[in-house]
């Protein structure tokens, strides 16, 4: 004998309950399989339910007039344990489909109940709760989400750089790949894992400085290495070379147009061209025109050395600080060669692999403050050279053309020169030459 409970089943159409109308059996009755048990009324119809078991009625779980929910007990039976004479050879496993999991509908077992879904998410929220809800913000009050592209995110992650602490220099504060590269090299090697937790500020003379809130009230830094070199060089220059500066604003529209059109040309695909390239060409051209610019005041020999070759130094801001590698015989290069030479110079300087020979014997220098969004500076003359040209940003500005105010790409040039051998007239003439060159570079470039 076994006890079996008949639960009120699906009788169709998404019903959730039924009312018992008439019992057709009583407690104690012995019923056969499929014998009518009860009439129930659903929202739709009166339905007769046949007995799923052969056995004795033990309990009727509702009275006439009661409403029973689907999947609730209706009748309990004592069922015979003996095998019926018709028993099939195979072992019969009673599989009640989706018991308790579905609300029945017209043409199917019905819709899975909410419980199913809740069970699954309940498991998940339990596991989250164990480790704590992840917070959207750093509790040290970092700013909101970082705007950047997926590969840059990956790069930052690989470097261990906390994007929230990287200043974005792209449009609308977008963090660019370069920003991440800069941020990465601003940390000492070996502390990648701690990067997101170390507070630093921009490097000074190749040195990492602790951030304002974090660092000591007074911090003493030993003067060594690049810092020492720079300090000595600047001191020497100011102490021994009387220097003055001239500056001018240039309509460099044609320069920018030329660069754009070259960049679009298949022959120039992949070449790194920028206003700096043209400025370099212009300065070399100016030296040819005004050799006196490319001179050195040899105080010891009481001679001025005029050089007819330009070793063009480019002030480079590297992770180790300011270095000025030069391009030998830059006056001999055409535009393409200059572009490549500049690219190579910048890359090796950043990598810290500039050969010492490239750091010596500069004759003229360019320092480019444009990338910082700055217009000009009175740069300090590198010792042993005649002039240093400071190049500012190229930006749209109002300009008068044929009596009308128009928007042009304007660039400011400022040149510091050794006033012992170079006078204001020459310096100004050089500036005018540069302005003319940059104002219409094509003829001069073609002439080379």
């Amino acid at each position: 004998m076994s006890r079996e409970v008949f639960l009120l089943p699906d009788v169709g159409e998404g019903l959730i309950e039924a009312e018992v109308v008439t019992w057709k059996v009583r407690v104690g009755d012995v019923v056969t399989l499929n014998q009518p048990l009860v009439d129930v009324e659903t929202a739709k119809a009166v339905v007769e339910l046949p007995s799923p078991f052969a056995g004795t009625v033990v309990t009727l779980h509702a009275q006439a007039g009661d409403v029973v929910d689907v999947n609730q007990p209706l009748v309990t039976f004592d069922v015979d344990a003996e095998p019926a004479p018709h028993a099939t050879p195979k072992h019969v496993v009673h599989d009640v489909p989706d018991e308790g999991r579905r609300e029945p509908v017209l043409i199917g077992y019905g819709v899975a109940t909410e419980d199913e879904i809740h069970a699954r998410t309940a498991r998940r929220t339990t596991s989250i709760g164990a480790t704590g809800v992840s917070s959207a913000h750093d509790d040290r009050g970092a700013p909101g989400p970082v705007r950047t592209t997926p590969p840059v995110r990956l790069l930052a992650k690989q470097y261990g750089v906390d994007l929230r602490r990287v200043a974005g220099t792209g449009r609308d504060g977008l963090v660019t790949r370069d920003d991440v590269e800069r941020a990465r090299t601003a940390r000492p090697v070996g502390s990648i894992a701690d990067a997101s937790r170390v507070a630093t500020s921009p490097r000074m003379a190749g040195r990492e400085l602790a951030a304002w809130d974090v660092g000591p009230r007074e911090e003493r830094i030993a003067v060594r290495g690049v810092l020492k070199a720079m300090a000595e060089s600047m001191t020497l220059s100011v102490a021994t070379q009387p220097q003055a500066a001239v500056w001018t604003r240039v309509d460099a529209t044609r320069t920018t147009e030329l660069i754009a059109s070259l960049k679009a040309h298949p022959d120039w695909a992949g070449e790194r061209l920028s206003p700096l390239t043209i400025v370099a060409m212009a300065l070399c051209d100016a030296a040819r025109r005004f050799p006196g610019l490319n001179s050195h005041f040899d105080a010891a020999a009481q001679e001025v050395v005029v050089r007819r070759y330009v070793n063009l130094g480019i002030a480079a801001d590297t992770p180790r600080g300011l270095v000025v590698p030069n391009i030998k015989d830059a006056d001999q290069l055409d535009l393409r060669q200059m572009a490549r030479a500049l690219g190579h110079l910048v890359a090796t300087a950043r990598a810290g692999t500039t050969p010492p020979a490239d750091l010596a014997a500069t004759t003229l220098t360019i320092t480019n403050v444009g990338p910082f969004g700055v217009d000009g500076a009175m740069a300090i003359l590198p010792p042993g050279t005649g002039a240093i040209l400071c190049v500012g940003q190229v930006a749209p500005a109002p300009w008068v053309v044929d009596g009308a105010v128009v928007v042009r790409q304007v660039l400011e040039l400022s040149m510091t020169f050794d006033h012992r051998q170079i006078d204001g007239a020459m310096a100004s003439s050089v500036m005018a030459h540069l302005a003319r060159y940059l104002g219409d570079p094509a003829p001069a470039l073609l002439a080379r």
Partner: protein
Amino acid sequence: MTTTTMTMAKALNEGLRRAMERDPKVLLMGEDIGKLGGVFRITDGLQKDFGQDRVVDTPLAESAIVGTAVGLSIRGYRPVCEMQFDGFVFPAFDQIVSQVAKLHKRSDGVYRMSMVIRLPFQGGIGAIEHHSESPEAYFAHTPGLRVVSPSTPHDAYWMIQQSIDSDDPIIFCEPKSRYWEKGEVDVASPSRDLYSAQVRRAGTDVTVVGYGSSVKTMLRAADAAALEGTSLEVIDLRSIAPIDFPVVTSSVEKTGRLIVVQDAPRTASISSEIVAEVTQRCFYSLRAPGLRVTGYHVPYPVARIEEEYRPTADRILDAVDQVMGFES
């Protein structure tokens, strides 16, 4: 020499002919395909050579063309149904989705729905309403079906034969605006299997993906982009369902940028599917979100203004500019 120049229409005709010569179980069924040779002459001359029992001029009921093809497939034939135009496939939609797509599964693999349903699709022929539709997404969305589209005469010649050989039901979308364009067909060997995508033009800056009539437009855009200094990699999907994603993702991993082109309206389309899938697979390679250059969310417009609706080389280039500009 095994290559010959022919129009896509002729290539389809020849491909059908080859298939019918090889296998007597191949039948063609459709409206006006026999005596008339089809409104686009795709089946020209075939009834004369193979007879009315194998090239059947049917009464005008698309549902019946496909429904009877189901029965013929059950019987072991390989029917090739022609829907006269894309816009007229819809009466057959029930049979396609309820029976063709499902009977292999419903019969636990006993039945093979070895049939091809050909339909001329996409716009660009200056037609009246219902003759320029792009219904491929409905079929790509239906498990059990496969959807392919040749963009060249060579592919048309081979893909129709490969589709007929397949034991799966295939919706064969023919870019009708390309029917009369000529191309080289190598009749000795196909270049690839039915479901492989093909890089039609190698490039480095942007991956541009499309199928059917869009492919030629994409190539034209690539020529123009090159002059502007941008290098597009053009991929012809060939198979719309399933999509050969490895070819697409290799390309996007290289370029970091994706544009998908289609005549069909954008919402819930093939292009949406590609952007979603590629974003998932190539997330860390992406330098910009995938952009879709598509028809608008309007019923296909009147022919006089259809060129504003369909993706042009200019619209593709516009998308190229957008996609190139995301990192600055």
